[in-house]
């Protein structure tokens, strides 16, 4: 069989999904080997995705029709500049999995390790599938693979509190999934097609119908729940804080982004079919601005470091949604780059916080006073991540927030520009508070004084990620240049 690039696109989601089924078999022999196996699979997936991205830049996007059925009848996967999101997805998993090897020993019972690694691979496969597919029903299926594995991952550490947080997440998540299915059914009933671009073309050719608007609205609401945008964020803090730290990193950095990718798909669908998005954009901007301020404000009052990071995710989703809602080139580019930057920063922060919790057994700021002196490397990584999330130049968070801000002012939305600045101010307050307790207060707990740096399998990924926060910040222009053509296409379709 000869190698073809389009087959490689189909393998990208299939590889982790198929490997997930094999994890329990490997774990039967040796629970530790399952971790190694999972790592190799994520590494292979990442290598494949990076190779595809390099090819994408050189030769342009790839489409593959599963089973050889041509679109619009067959299922179409598309590896374009938005689908290239799968490369960072797989890379982050390849860093989180080795971190989990040792972390699990302290927090997850041994008989659940196989389930943990299998669920991680399912999650990765679903996330990649979601970012590649152009078929609406497959979009729903990939979303459900991601969601169900996420519910289970929240509860994987056992104990009733985790199960309760997972169930709250499940009940809200399922309603939003159901809205997506309803919207897909409605669009299918209207147009008789499931391919996103074919649906859009058929809608554009037919009379404008309120049913199409209803379908788009329910898709938008569903993805807003998945993205945990402010008033619909209630499920997020508990689920993200209670889950084991590698899971928190994946949920907060990567899984909430399916809501954002979904919103971009709604914008594509609406743009191509000529449905006006004015009300939708206004609402996104307003909610985004409220989320920026409220998320950051609520984070200030958290004593638990993981809960604080979870609220900071709500604030950062606000930035991205505000950028998308503004619908001007600067802001949308900034928002899409921030999808990547926030993922990088949040994975760094959650893994660093996980190291601190793993080494000391403590998780509140009050208890962790003075931990900067006993865990210098981990806390340095945490500091770098904190600087990046505040958006201080030259770290990763700066360029994307700067572009969203520029977009707000260039669109004449000065009030939203100020919301952004106020949000950054609150973020600054809570990270200064964190750094103050880590470095400038006397340790009050024995565990903090006795703590030692974590093993290299945990320390390595954290340091690599923290270094990436700095390097990506220095070369942020490359990301912007990469995503700009996709933004141009998106905005051209929306006619603005």
């Amino acid at each position, binding site marked *: 069989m000869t190698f073809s690039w389009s087959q490689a696109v189909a393998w990208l989601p299939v590889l982790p999904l198929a490997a997930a089924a094999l994890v329990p078999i490997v774990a039967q022999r040796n629970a530790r080997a399952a971790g190694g196996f999972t790592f190799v699979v994520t590494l292979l997936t990442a290598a494949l995705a990076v190779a595809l991205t390099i090819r994408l830049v050189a030769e342009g996007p790839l489409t593959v029709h599963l089973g050889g059925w041509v679109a619009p009848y067959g299922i179409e996967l598309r590896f374009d500049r938005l689908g290239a999101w799968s490369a960072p997805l797989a890379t982050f998993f390849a860093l989180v999995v080795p971190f989990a090897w040792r972390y699990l020993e302290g927090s997850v019972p041994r008989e659940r390790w196989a389930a943990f690694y299998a669920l991680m691979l399912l999650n990765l496969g679903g996330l990649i599938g979601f970012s590649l597919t152009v078929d609406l*029903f497959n979009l729903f*299926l990939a979303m*459900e693979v991601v969601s*169900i594995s996420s*519910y*289970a991952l929240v*509860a994987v550490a*056992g*104990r*009733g*509190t985790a*199960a*309760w947080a*997972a*169930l709250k997440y*499940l*009940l809200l998540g*399922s*309603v939003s*999934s*159901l809205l997506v*299915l*309803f919207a*897909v*059914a409605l669009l*299918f*009933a209207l147009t*008789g097609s*499931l391919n996103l671009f074919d649906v859009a073309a058929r809608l554009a050719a037919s009379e404008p119908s309120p049913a199409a608007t209803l379908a788009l609205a329910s898709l938008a609401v569903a993805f807003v729940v998945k993205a945990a945008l402010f008033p619909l964020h209630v499920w997020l803090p508990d689920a993200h804080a209670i889950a084991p730290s590698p899971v928190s990193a994946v949920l907060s950095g990567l899984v909430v982004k399916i809501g954002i990718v979904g919103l971009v798909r709604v914008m594509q669908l609406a743009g191509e079919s000529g449905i006006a998005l004015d009300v939708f954009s206004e609402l996104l901007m307003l909610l985004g601005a409220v989320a920026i301020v409220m998320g950051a404000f609520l984070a200030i009052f958290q004593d638990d470091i993981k809960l604080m990071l979870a609220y900071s995710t709500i604030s950062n989703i606000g930035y991205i949604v505000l950028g998308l809602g503004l619908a001007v080139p600067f802001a949308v580019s900034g928002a899409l780059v921030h999808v990547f930057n926030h993922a990088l920063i949040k994975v760094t922060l959650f893994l660093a916080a996980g190291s601190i919790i793993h080494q000391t057994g403590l998780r509140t700021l009050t208890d962790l006073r003075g931990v900067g002196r006993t865990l210098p490397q981990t806390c340095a990584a945490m500091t770098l991540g904190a600087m990046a999330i505040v958006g201080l130049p030259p770290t990763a968070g700066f360029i994307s927030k700067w572009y969203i801000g520029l977009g707000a002012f260039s669109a004449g939305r000065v009030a939203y520009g100020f919301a952004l600045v106020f949000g950054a101010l609150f973020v600054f307050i809570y990270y200064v508070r964190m750094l103050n307790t880590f470095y400038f207060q006397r340790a009050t707990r024995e565990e903090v004084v006795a703590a030692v740096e974590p093993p290299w399998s945990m320390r390595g990924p954290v340091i690599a990620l923290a270094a990436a926060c700095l390097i990506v910040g220095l070369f942020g222009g490359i990301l912007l240049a990469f995503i700009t053509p996709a933004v141009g296409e998106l905005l051209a379709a929306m006619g603005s």
Partner: protein
Amino acid sequence: MVLFGVDVDYLAFVVLFCVGLYMLVRKSNLLKKLLGLNVMETAVFAFLVTAGMIEGADPPIRTAGTGPLFANPIPHAMVLTGIVVAVSVTAVALALIVQIHAHYGTIEVDELKGLP
């Protein structure tokens, strides 16, 4: 079927969906909430199946003497897949409810709220 200008199929679907949503939001018992979710799922599936219906058409199996109109089989395939997804969600939810009951000794939301 159309009665008094309203498509009864769609009306039934909307009513069923709202009943499910009411149960999910208002009931305090976690099992009842889950049942509400299942009722909502059934409503969406019913809508999807009716979307594939064609008046006076044969089942989409081609043998001698069938046609020329066939019902659209794609929604049926979608509903089957959707049912599998719904069963998985229900299974995960039930497993979680068992764990919650083992840990807290209750599955009533208003009692769970006060507990740590």
